[in-house]
């Protein structure tokens, strides 16, 4: 009841707030340090030659990562082509059939798949595609990455569609619109921003994956656009340059890292923009 008590409590309050702020700041620190470091080390390497020429053999100065950029873009397209239709369909199934044995099995599988180490997924893709075809290939890399994209797409599609009010579906069905058209023309368009956000986030997630590519896409010094041949990728190129004993190649690894980080950051920002801008008001 005295002033002293209140003072102590206010002091505890202030300390608590201070500690929360401090830890929040500490958790942000690594991100900014990484961005700062990569920008400092990487940006000086970026120039026309680096972006648009092929890697040179050991001993020759210069060279670039154009094959890795093209390879990464191809892998993104390949894995999206496989995982987007499957993921959205599974998400629709889950939101339409909330209970039920199959739904629960899918949900559990998604969680397990999300926790599966990426290198294991790489081995699976090796067994499925690389071994039968007897060659490393862009296709096998795309398959490995698409398996990694699936959980994110399925989850975000399900969560988005679950939020769409039931009365919209009723409105459509009451007009005599068949079920499949109701889903395709009413429900999916209403959830488009959430679904697109999920796709972009899953792309951002796999863009930097290295492990599943080690024995699938493999890496390639040369330009390749054939999906049945080995292909280069930014993460693999970083790995390759960073493991070398040459200082110039080390700086190339930083340059490639910079491109990769900018790409992922851009994808995340676009996803954010879409989820805000295209949001549908019910």
């Amino acid at each position, binding site marked *: 009841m005295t002033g002293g008590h209140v003072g102590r409590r206010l002091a505890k309050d202030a300390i608590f707030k201070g500690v929360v702020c401090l830890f929040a700041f500490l958790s942000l620190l690594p991100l900014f340090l990484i961005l700062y470091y990569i920008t400092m080390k990487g940006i000086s390497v970026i120039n026309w030659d680096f972006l648009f020429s092929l890697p040179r053999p050991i001993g020759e100065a210069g060279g670039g990562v154009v094959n890795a950029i093209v390879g990464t873009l191809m892998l993104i397209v390949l894995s999206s082509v496989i995982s987007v239709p499957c993921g959205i369909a599974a998400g629709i199934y889950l939101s339409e059939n909330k209970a039920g044995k199959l739904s629960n099995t899918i949900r559990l599988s998604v969680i397990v798949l999300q926790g599966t180490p990426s290198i294991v997924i790489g081995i699976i893709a090796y067994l499925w595609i690389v071994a039968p075809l007897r060659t490393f290939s862009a296709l096998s890399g795309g398959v490995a990455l698409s398996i990694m994209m699936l959980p994110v797409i399925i989850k975000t599609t399900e969560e988005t569609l679950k939020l769409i*009010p039931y*009365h*919209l579906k*009723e*409105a*459509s*069905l*009451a*007009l*005599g*619109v*068949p079920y499949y*058209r*109701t889903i395709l*023309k*009413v429900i999916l*368009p*209403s959830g*488009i921003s959430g679904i697109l956000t999920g796709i972009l986030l899953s792309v951002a997630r796999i863009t930097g994956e290295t492990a599943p590519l080690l024995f699938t896409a493999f890496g390639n010094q040369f330009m390749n656009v054939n999906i049945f041949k080995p292909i280069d990728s930014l993460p693999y190129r970083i790995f390759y340059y960073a493991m070398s004993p040459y200082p110039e190649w080390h700086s190339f690894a930083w340059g490639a890292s910079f491109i990769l980080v900018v790409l992922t950051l851009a994808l995340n920002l676009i996803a954010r923009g879409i989820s805000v801008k295209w949001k*549908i*008001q*019910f």
Partner: protein
Amino acid sequence: MEDTVLKVEKFSAFFGDNKVLKDVDLTVRRNVVAALMGPSGCGKTTLIRCVNRMHELIPGATVTGKMTLIDEDIYAMQPIVLRRKVGMVFQKPNPFPTMSIYENVIAGYKLNGIRMAKSELDTVVERSLKRSALWDEVKDTLHRKGTFLSGGQQQRLCIARALAMNPEILLLDEPTSALDPKSTSQIEELFVELKRNVTMLLVTHNIAQAARVSDVTAFIYLGELVEFGPTEKMFTVPKDKRTEEYLTGKFG
């Protein structure tokens, strides 16, 4: 009997083992407003949801008995064919959020993949919006999203969407219960206007609304059709004691 639009005979509806409608008999003639009133949970909404077979979308829901629209057995028709002939307006206004006002009105054609010339569509939109008394308010903003409208306007947009399909009967599931008094009276006036050439089945828990709008009234209590007859008669000299008690506010 060609004047009869909807005929319900010995009709029962179930959720699992729970009988929510008990042997209902009802006849609705052309161009009248038939009101279904009764306390919450009495089965009135279930009854109209059986007319366009939305009831059966709920897992475990079943029906017995017969329903006839004009002279077709409702339960022998394909639901998607039936629902184009039976318009429905819901409790909460539900325009499609991805579509403009214009697209919402013709949603029944567009979503069903029925192709029509632009001029034809324009006519349908204008006629439907005029019939639902919304045209003057939205004729300059037809291509804005329907969700920018006020609640009452959204509900009239939903009525226009249902009318655009030229339904044989319009089902109204407590269409004004989510609206303010002014929008409510606007929509009630609209129903009185519409009944010259539209048959309507109106579910309401608002006794005064049934009295103001309808020609015939059905009183449903605990799944049973207690009384059905001309509105005036029922409100002045109810035959059943339960109807009298409900109308005088003893329960419900």
